[in-house]
């Protein structure tokens, strides 16, 4: 096995960092830290994108990196922090599954994701194709995060983390989607977050809390 170029080694390290951050988010219960982790994940993503852009010379990857920087590193964490301060949600009281259990499930999910990514990596022609597995793992771990949280805010963070995973997947496997799509996606994420902001205030106005416990009245099991 020949040694990979240094850039790729860095890229792989960044990918591993992404995975680690996902795990950290899965374990973290403080909402503020969770948002910070998200921002960090965005930053790592941004760095990876930049690096890749530099290596491949794809112009639109620079653009993507800029988009990521603005949106995921700066704007969204800022927005979320602001919301946290305004709404006073700092703790996600407790997760539905204890941390160790969650971690174990997470580990299994990672194994599964890596297995899943095999055929994709085999097909992809990019230098970073081996990182696709990481992207899948990030997506699934984010999913898991959302499942195990009780606060609306943490779920949103999980949701955004999933978006990060998607982005990373697209980037590592194909050097990003066509521009028009990427713009559209970014726009959607932005709008989604704005809508969320509105939402949070509405929810809080009604329930005095962002605890999902209150959002369980519509059900069949009465």
């Amino acid at each position: 096995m020949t040694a990979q170029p240094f850039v790729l080694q860095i890229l792989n390290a960044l990918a591993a960092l992404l995975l680690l951050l996902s795990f950290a988010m899965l374990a973290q219960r403080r909402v503020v830290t969770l948002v910070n982790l998200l921002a960090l994940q965005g930053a790592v993503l941004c760095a990876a994108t930049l690096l890749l852009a530099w290596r491949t010379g794809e112009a639109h990857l620079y653009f993507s990196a800029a988009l990521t920087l603005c949106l995921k590193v700066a704007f969204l964490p800022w927005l979320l922090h602001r919301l946290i301060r305004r709404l006073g949600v700092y703790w996600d009281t407790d997760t539905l599954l204890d941390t160790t259990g969650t971690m174990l499930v997470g580990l299994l999910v990672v194994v599964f994701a890596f297995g899943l990514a095999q055929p994709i990596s085999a097909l992809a022609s990019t230098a970073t194709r081996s990182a696709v597995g990481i992207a899948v793992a990030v997506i699934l771990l984010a999913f898991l995060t959302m499942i195990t949280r009780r606060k609306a805010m943490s779920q949103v963070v999980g949701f955004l983390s999933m978006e990060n995973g998607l982005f990373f997947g697209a980037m590592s496997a194909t050097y990003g989607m066509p521009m028009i799509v990427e713009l559209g996606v970014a726009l959607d994420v932005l709008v989604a977050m704005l809508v969320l902001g509105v939402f949070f205030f509405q929810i809080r106005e009604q329930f005095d809390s962002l605890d999902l416990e209150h959002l369980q009245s519509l059900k069949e099991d009465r």
Partner: protein
Amino acid sequence: MIANLGSPLSAALALLCAWVVIGLAGLLRPMSLVFAGRTLFPLGAACGLALALAALLGIAAPTAHLTLPIGLPDLPMHVRCDALSCVFLCILGATSAGVSLFGAGYFRSGQGAPPGLLCLQYHLFLASMGFVLLADDAYGFMVAWETMALSSYFLVTTQHRIEEIRRAGFLYLLMAHLGAIAILLCFGVLQGGSWQFSFDAMRSAQLSPPRAGVALLLALVGFGAKAGLVPLHVWLPEAHPAAPSPVSALMSGVMLKVAVYGMLRVAFDLLGGPLWWWGLLPVSLGLFTALYGIVFAAAQTDMKRLLAYSSVKNIGILFTGIGLAIVFHGVGRPQLAALALVAVLYHSVNHAFMKSLLFLGTGVVLHSTGERNLGRLGGLIHRMPWVAWLTLVGTLAIAGLPPLNGFVSEWLLLQAFLFAFEVPHTFVNMLLPLGAGLVALTGALSGYVMVKFFGVVFLGKPREAAAAPAHDAGSLERGGLLWLASGCVILGLLPAQIVPVLARVAEQLHVGRLLPNGAPWWMLVPLQGRQASYAPLVFSCAVVAVVLLTIWVVRLLYHQRIRRVAPWDCGFGRLDARMQDTAEGFGQPIRHLFEPFFAMQRQLPSPFDPAPRYRVVIGDRIWNAAYAPLGALVQRIADAFAALQQGRIASYLLYGFITLIVLLALVL
């Protein structure tokens, strides 16, 4: 496209469309009773009459086809008119002529659906029944079939403010729908691998015996549910009383026959040659249904429920006949098969006339007294002689008494049963003749039931004040009743003219032929060389002659004095109306004899009770044993599913996650 306007098929189509148009015309002035009653319903009756005539001509005419430019793109609606269709179209036309005429005078304004809407639903109901009879492909058949169910449902729930009626309507449509599902499945089996859903394709399909058996079973379930075959009969005694009387008359008189038509169409036309022993299922179910129906009829206290159960009994007889025809057909006794089939057809015609007549009669009673409960009626023969005497004709006919029509078809069926020992299989050839005994028993029981019905409603003294100021039917209503009653008489007196016409159906379906025999025109000899004969015209003339002669002789020889006195009653004297037998009392021997049939709840007073009350509630064991647990089962499954949906978003996400993982694992 329209081949020949004069042909029975196009005439029938045109008349059915005319019904639809008449119905739609009702919406022009939806609130006008006069417009609907005096103009549209008589028009509908005229159409019915014309349809009956066209169909009568059509029985002798060759089979006609037509493809209509509507329906599914790959399956345009086919219509076809053969002798079988024509016989049932004839039933539809003739019966509806009487019922529509009656209906013209019957419907009153008041609560419930506005007259115009009623007119639409009524005529749609008629037209859809006609289309069922003409349809020659599965899609067209199903469309017409369900339209029939739907329009009749709306008619049943005309008085929708009454909770009971709504429940009856719901049960009715539900059962109809479940039946329709079975019919659809039946067609799915019948196409036999060609995946063509025209009846022509089904006719030419070669089915393996197991598949054909499944098809027959499904048909039995589907058409049985509509016809009221036990244990699928539960809707019938609920829905028929709930509907306005002309509608009950049509449902019982015609719609049940349409179900019988479907069964015949599948069994003898589409299915080709069913195996003989499949016929045993309809026979046994039919016999059980007949007994069950009539026994329950005897126990009823509501006059329309009583008639509804009597319909169940007649459906049982019809299915017995169908089964018998299948058996004979299968074992290669074409003449006997034809005889059984003719008996079925004859009974269908008869039952249409007599049951409509009776339902219409109860309609007048209901209108003028507001009572359906037998326990509160009585003595109406004095107040409404027209209705009483015409209903008496129907009563005697349905009790299976000669010389009226009900007897003829039962006679034919018994004749067919008599030769069941020719079936070359032990057990079967012993059991089938015993079945004839059951048919006889149900026939005799219906005599019992009908005496109860007529006696309690029309004879004796009014049991409650409400029955006292009753008035007779109006002229249009009388016309309708008279038409149906004369049908009963004519069908009873001229069987020798009618049987050959019906036998054409058996011949065209290749079931068998009734060979012509040298009997004179007034005598019915169904089977050549068996010498059983029946000449109702002769002996009824004789009876009339003897009666007249007796009256004359008595007048001649003795004086004519009649004194009107108080009833003697063994000198008891203090007679009042409440000492007559009630409906419960009259039914008591049957309840006693057939106790295992009923799920009875009795409240008996103790000997020292100061205000004794006797109450008996009669339930249907089949309902308790099959339907109630089924409902509970569905509810339990629903509860189990509901437990999945607890409202927590996390669990919803988890479902998504698991789904994703499982599917991914699946493709990996």
